[in-house]
């Protein structure tokens, strides 16, 4: 009896393994794995899985398994690790500035040949040009825009009305931001803050536009230099410190996700965050809120951001299949669908004329704030350097240290030395 059950167990095991293995590559169907991150608030994993399922249903040549990979940092970790282990995902959505690092480890392929098949420059012209700059290196195009955004300014219109501010006039300058913040901040009887004027998360993506607005620069075009110890840098940090300690309208240190849930909960009246959180905020918040361009300073400028599709080096068949996925996902109706469900900006010009999208933006013009900011305001490229993971950690840690109370000059000096050391091999 014991022997029979043992044999049965082994046979079942073998059959299961064979069946599971076989499932992956049915005759003719190319099986792809796609890693994707969700870097903003919202049930975007669900939307992504639904869209991928629709792609799979629409044809039978390619089958994509969409694999949620956490935030941008975790997705990059996962993709790098898989590549280093010799089994890269065929396709991945990764933060666009990871381009130089992905090329440094020789993990991705240029997309010019595929683009040529679709019509070359004419195809590229279908995309919003502001999103293509970060995909270019060495005269080639390496990624295709997918979930693209700009930082935008969110504000609670109910609170504005409550303190006597015009709900249709958000702050347009840094000075106005402080002024409004002071009015909006609420303190209870024992002196504890129940509502902050504004919240600004520790994140290089929010730091860079402030730096640009102060007239400074952060990374160079080639991604080989990071300038963090500059007078403009100090101006930005001093401004943030003043908002936290002098005017006391902002908590000094907050994480990205917390600031969004605080805005939804009403413990902050104004917020700097991505347009990608727009739909989630709209669905969760009980207040009347508005969106606006980032308050300006010496310059009115913002940056683009978000994730692009990258095709990893595998074999010709799978690379071509991955390109089919990208083409389908970036069709005007699909990028419009993604934008509707998330708040990200559609990546193709034609998407704005898709009927559902037109209806959505006619009913709710707020949805177009990020796109209008992209077009009407000077928009620069996201921060992109070599050794992108180390540099991102460095900038975020430096910001956290200074806002946490460390001496600004000493910290910036150290950070600059560290950045130079990290990038020294790439000069």
């Amino acid at each position, binding site marked *: 009896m014991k022997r029979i059950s043992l044999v049965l167990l082994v046979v079942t095991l073998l059959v299961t393994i064979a069946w599971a293995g076989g499932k992956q590559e049915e005759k003719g169907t190319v099986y792809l794995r796609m890693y994707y991150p969700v870097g903003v608030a919202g049930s975007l994993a669900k939307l992504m899985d639904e869209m991928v399922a629709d792609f799979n249903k629409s044809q039978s040549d390619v089958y994509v398994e969409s694999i949620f990979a956490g935030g941008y*940092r975790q997705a*990059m*970790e996962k993709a*790098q*690790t898989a590549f*280093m282990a010799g089994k890269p995902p065929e396709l991945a959505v990764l933060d666009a500035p990871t381009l130089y*690092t992905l090329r*440094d*480890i*020789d993990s991705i392929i240029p997309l010019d040949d595929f683009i040529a098949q679709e019509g070359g420059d004419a195809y590229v012209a279908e995309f919003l040009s502001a999103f293509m700059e970060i995909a270019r290196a060495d005269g080639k195009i390496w990624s295709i825009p997918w979930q693209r955004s700009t930082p935008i300014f969110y504000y609670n219109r109910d609170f504005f009305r409550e303190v006597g501010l015009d709900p249709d006039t958000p702050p347009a300058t840094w000075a106005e931001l402080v002024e409004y913040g002071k009015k909006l901040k609420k303190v209870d009887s*024992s*002196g*504890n803050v*129940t509502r902050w004027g504004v919240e600004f998360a*520790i994140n290089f993506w929010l730091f860079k536009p402030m730096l640009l607005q102060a007239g400074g620069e952060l990374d160079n075009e080639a991604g080989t230099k990071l300038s963090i110890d500059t007078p403009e840098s100090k101006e930005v940090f001093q401004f943030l410190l003043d908002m936290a300690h002098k005017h006391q309208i902002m*908590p000094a*240190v*907050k*994480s990205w996700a*917390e600031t969004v*849930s*605080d805005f939804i*909960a009403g*413990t902050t009246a104004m917020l700097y965050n991505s347009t990608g959180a727009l739909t989630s905020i709209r669905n969760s918040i009980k207040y009347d809120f508005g969106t606006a361009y980032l308050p300006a300073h010496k310059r009115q400028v913002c940056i683009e951001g978000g994730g692009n599709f990258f095709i990893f080096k595998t074999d010709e068949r799978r690379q071509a299949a991955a390109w089919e996925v990208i083409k389908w996902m970036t069709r005007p109706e699909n990028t419009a669908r993604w934008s509707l469900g998330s708040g990200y900006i559609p990546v193709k010009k034609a998407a704005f004329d898709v009927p559902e999208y037109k209806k959505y933006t006619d009913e709710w013009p707020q949805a177009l704030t990020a796109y209008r900011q992209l077009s009407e305001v000077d928009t620069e490229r996201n921060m992109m350097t*070599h*050794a992108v*993971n*180390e540099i991102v*950690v460095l900038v*975020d*840690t430096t910001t*956290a*240290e200074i806002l*946490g*109370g*460390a001496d600004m000059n000493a910290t910036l000096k150290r950070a600059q030395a560290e950045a130079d050391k990290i990038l*020294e*091999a*790439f000069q």
Partner: protein
Amino acid sequence: MNRFKAIKPYLYLVPAFFFLVIFTYYPIFRALYLSLFKWSTSYPVKVFTGFSNYADIFTTPLFWKVTQNSLIYSVSTIVISMSLGLFLAVQINKRIRLSTVYKIALFYPTMIPMAAASLIWMWMYIPSYGLFDFFLGKLGIPSMNWLNDERIALRSIVAVGVWKYVGYYMILFLAGLQNIPASMVDAAIVEGANNRQRFFFVTFPMISSYTFFIFIINIINSLQAIDQVYIMTQGGPANSTNLIVYYIYEHAFLFWNRGIASTLTTILILFLLIFISFIFRSIGKRVYYEVE
């Protein structure tokens, strides 16, 4: 046939030995080997550099900060969880009614995966409207920035570490307490020892083998802490919760600096080896094991 009988014991050991070599010894020696190379995105082909990685690390202020954080974390979790575990075990040992309820209630955190627990704790720690600040607010205490304030973030992480394992240590201590021969306790009472004297001169020495075991396990657990850090703070804010294993993880899988990651691993292994053998030789000698 005799020959076979002689080798048989060794054959049984082969599978276990196989796994030991592949998953323990080989990685240790490979880490030692790779620590002598520069191998990262700046050096895609590994370059032999001798001990320069070590020199590099020992002159990096962040390494010392991480070491300090890890030591604070370890000492705090060990002291708090062991004394709390022992205290709870002693209390539960006295009361037999409802002891099962207490045992289950205190032990269940051990069964929850640390990653899942960290997510829940993260929500509880949210300022203003997270569970803790919500109740503190009702008592009139201002909301604390549990995970974002450099000065208290590490303590918040310690709290999670203690909560996770205190039940486990308590159960172990309980087993130890229940193994103390009743005759010894009675003899002490007869001799006129009060509660405190009974505890320090009879109870505590008799459970010393359990205490020693828990101490070693605790050291290992606390120095391996990474789940809470990865999920709740990612080493922040400003590296105040950057613990050694997280630091190694960052270098290995985020920065892909395999040379430095191997060096850090080797340093950690050597430290643990020396420290644990020192513990065994000093305190270990004074542990009481039951004599038949």
